[in-house]
């Protein structure tokens, strides 16, 4: 067994997110009258998955449908907790947090980009990007200024007052990226970020994600080969297990 040199260990970067022996099972079946489901079957979505992702890395998660991509993404985003093993985000074991604390963890440390953008149609691009600032209690003028900066950063400085319906799909996704970056998160998670976009708009969004990965960890789950060609490292899953991580 090799011993870790304490000096080398000190120089190792602390992973932004660290999955250690993570397993996730679900019970499926008809619930009984009292909520018990005696006939339920246990489905294993993930089994003994380990991966550490560092700041500055752009990591892809790939795999066929049902391979456990979404489950792993939800665990890494602290939306769910593992049945076995542990997920550490910034050194904090998510399974030890209450739902409220996990909500705060997401708010303060994680940005999420959804496949379908999930922008509020009644709000302008600027108001959509400013949404997370409300949860932090940031004042109105500061919210507006910071949202404007973020939109400039994603190349939409001239679309501040446009509503989602007035923007193209690529522009909407860039607004969603700007919203995810609002808290300057250490971890940015994107679930099929190009799934609803044409190839050109998708390439622009990938450029943006690669750009923001310089000072944070970015995880992208995708089927799209064009996306996977742009990432630094791909974690391939099959039947809930890591097949390759390179």
């Amino acid at each position, binding site marked *: 067994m090799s011993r870790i040199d304490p000096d080398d260990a000190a120089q190792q970067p602390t992973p932004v997110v660290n999955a250690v022996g993570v397993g996730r099972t679900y019970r499926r079946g008809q619930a009984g009258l009292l909520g018990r489901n005696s006939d339920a079957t246990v489905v294993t979505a993930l089994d003994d998955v380990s991966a550490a992702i560092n700041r500055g890395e752009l990591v892809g998660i790939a795999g066929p449908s049902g391979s456990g991509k979404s489950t792993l993404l939800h665990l890494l985003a602290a939306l769910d907790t593992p049945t076995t093993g542990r997920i550490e985000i910034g050194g904090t074991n998510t399974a030890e947090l209450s739902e409220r604390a996990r909500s705060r963890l997401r708010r303060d440390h994680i940005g999420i980009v959804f496949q379908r953008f999930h922008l*509020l149609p009644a709000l302008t691009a600027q108001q959509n990007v400013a949404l997370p600032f409300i949860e932090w209690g940031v004042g109105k003028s500061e919210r507006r200024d910071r949202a404007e900066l973020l939109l400039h950063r994603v190349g939409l400085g001239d679309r501040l007052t446009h509503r989602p319906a007035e923007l193209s799909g690529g522009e909407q996704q860039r607004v969603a990226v700007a919203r995810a970056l609002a808290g300057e998160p250490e971890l940015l998670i994107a679930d099929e970020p190009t799934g609803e976009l044409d190839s050109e708009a998708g390439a622009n969004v990938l450029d943006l994600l690669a750009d923001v990965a310089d000072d944070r960890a970015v995880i992208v789950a995708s089927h799209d080969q064009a996306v996977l060609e742009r990432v630094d490292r791909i974690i391939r899953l099959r039947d809930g297990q890591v097949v390759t991580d390179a």
Partner: protein
Amino acid sequence: MRRLLALCKLGVVQTLGRFRTAEARRLVMTTLGVALAVALMVSVTSVAVGLASGSTVQGDDVDYWIVPEGGSASTIAVSVEGPRLGEVHQTTAEIEADDRVTYATPVQLQILQVSAGNTSEYVLAAGVVPPADGQRVLGLPTEALAPGDPHYANGTYNGTWTGDAVLSSAAAEVLGVETGAELNAAGTDRPLRAVDVADADVSTGLGPVPVMVVHLSELQTITGTSAGDQADQILVSTNDPSVESELRGVYPRTDVLTRSGVGGASVSTSSLPLAVAVAAFLTAVSIGALFVATLTGLDVIANRATIAAQGAMGFSRRSQTILVLSQVVTIAGLGGIAGTLLGLGGVVAINRISQAYVGVQNVAQFHPALLAYGPLVAIVIGLLASPYPAWLARRTNIVEVLDQ
């Protein structure tokens, strides 16, 4: 606090903005539901206000009312079939014998079906003993009526039948008659004749009630109340307040009301208007809250993906509850404003219909306070309805919804 205000404002802005999106139809339906409930409540409450502020029959020359015991301002209302006073001609004559009394008359009020030609309408008939000096009784001039009560004939009821009737303008209008027209009261062959038509200044709050003033004994004969010489009240005009104590002794078990007492009767002491208003309030709140809860619940289910996304972004359950609450209250508030305006239209419609078919104007009175009452009740509806959509929002499973 800043976050709370920002979340509330976001809920309002988001709700108003959604009226411009594809979700507008559902929002409009919800708003209309509240608006209808509030409009119904405002209309019914306006009728209650009309009832409460109306219904006293008084004239400028009357200083005291002798009414059966337990009477109040509302007892001298336009009401019939209550307790009555007896032997009123003789008693009134005794009261008038007092030098301090300018004028006194018994009054019997009765709803009568009166026909003129092919038109038949209900009017409020007031049987009085008109004074010789032509004072106004119940707001109508009595100069055209033969003085005294000729048909009474010392209680024999076989004196001259004058048939004289003074009609208010409203009564003449609904019957379609003018001075000199022949009239017939239902249930009797005795003829009546419109000897005068005048604007009544009866302060009823119900507007120009169709009123007809006739001789008391003739009304008693028509309505079969001559036995016992009955009337509802005795009106007394005097310039000497000391007469009040004398009036209190005229009848056992009667009350004497003063002008000041009746002046205060612009708001009825009857519990009926209050009951009507409370019933309208409860109906509007319960129906409105159920309607809003159902539709906003559907709205939450339709927007589960957005709620889940907000949860994923780190919006706490509390923040999401505040957002839902502010959205529901905003929708309800908009419905309240629309409902109040609709209710105002309803009041106008009620008054027009009642004027057209019953001949009574201003059955409903729109009090300015209702402008605030309607939206406030709508907000109560929103607050009562919001726990259900808030509960639905709270139980949204983020992972499950984002997986779909």
